[in-house]
């Protein structure tokens, strides 16, 4: 399982490095979405709002949707799907590998967006650094959940539009827990409840993925 996971993750990351879709399409989308978020707050609040962590996560969430679509699109061309299916890869390994690759990509994009939030929304640098572990776990949970929901919708009618409908509600607790722990890092306050939610979500999505990913594949 772990061998397959590493093989699949390395393959996905290599494809990403080669195609540069992340660099030239996803990251610019995230940056422009962050700028628009600032504009939406209005001139009085764009630079001094406490909404920084929330906007950071909201933008990350939309960026994650693009990346999940991309992660599934790699596998979804008819010929690739058929050829890869005949390799008989262990589905649990494929799930872990795709989650790992998506997680690494989300971390990289998250760092760029965090820098953007510090720059344009004036989020405090120290607080952002303190929030890094919780951001890392939130994005890891998003990657695991996203890989599952991506596989759920892959190949179905209107997969690209169905994905957000299914995924965004499931991301809501992650958004809340991520935002609350980021805000706690900035302004102080209780933290452990959010770590519980994030850890439970991460473990639950990983467990469901390892057990049931094979069930989601088209026969």
């Amino acid at each position, binding site marked *: 399982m772990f061998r397959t996971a590493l093989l699949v993750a390395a*393959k996905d990351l*290599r*494809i990403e490095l*080669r195609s540069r879709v992340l660099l030239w399409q996803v990251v610019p989308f995230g940056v422009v979405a962050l700028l628009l978020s600032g504009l939406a707050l209005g001139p009085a609040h764009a630079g001094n709002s406490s909404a920084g962590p929330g906007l950071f996560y909201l933008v990350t969430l939309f960026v994650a949707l693009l990346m999940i679509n991309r992660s599934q699109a790699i596998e979804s061309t*008819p010929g*690739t799907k058929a*050829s890869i*299916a*005949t*390799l008989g890869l262990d589905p649990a390994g494929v799930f872990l590998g795709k989650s790992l690759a998506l997680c690494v990509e989300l971390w990289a994009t998250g760092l760029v967006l965090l820098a953007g939030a510090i720059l344009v929304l004036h989020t405090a640098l120290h607080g952002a650094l303190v929030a890094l572990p919780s951001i890392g776990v939130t994005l890891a949970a998003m990657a695991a959940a996203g890989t599952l929901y991506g596989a759920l919708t892959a190949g179905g009618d209107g997969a690209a539009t169905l994905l957000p409908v299914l995924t965004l509600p499931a991301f809501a607790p992650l958004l809340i827990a991520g935002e609350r722990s980021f805000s706690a890092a900035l302004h102080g306050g209780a933290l452990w409840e959010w770590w519980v939610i994030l850890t439970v979500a991460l473990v639950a999505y990983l467990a469901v993925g390892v057990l049931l990913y094979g069930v989601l594949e088209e026969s």
Partner: protein
Amino acid sequence: MEGDIDVVRLHDAVVLSSGFPLLSGVDLRIGAGSLSVVTGANGAGKTSLLRLLAGLIPLTSGVATVAGIDLAEGDPRQLRRRVGWLGHEGSFYDDLSVRENLVFAARALDRPTSEIGSVVERVGLSHRIDTTTRQLSAGQRRRLGLAWLLLRRPELWLLDEPYASLDDDGRTFFDALLGDVVASGATVVVSAHDPLRSAALNPRTILLAGGRVVGDN
């Protein structure tokens, strides 16, 4: 013991997609080590038949056994490991090179990557081994598909329209390769519009129409 040497046994096999019968009751037996050409008009069900045999689409009703695995009950993953599929679409990761695609397949199958050089040479792609698949021509992609199958050495080869996009040299090369594969004991099923293409290999010709077998010789 005829059943033991049949790689494919279908009885009244029906496959539906969105309520439409792609296959409407196929009765067919294919013996081990044989070469068969499935032919018929557009929409006759050629690709669907091959996809069913590859475990890529589910059997709706009827009886189907491929390589000893019951398609209705068995694990499609088990079946897919034993069959090789070459579709008429591109069949690899477009952003990986020929070598990277084959290394991925070899590692997934637990095969030594040292075989890749000889396989690529056999299909005539040595000069393109580090080219991204996206940059290959349709015929070269077909050759990469064959390299993929040679690496896998499946017991049942299912080739969907393999002659499309091949030039004359490519067709001659392909016929020679098919001959070697059959001689090695593998079973080959090819779909083609033109049944005469592989006449030199003296294949069995199975004619499909309306999603079932209407001619066999």
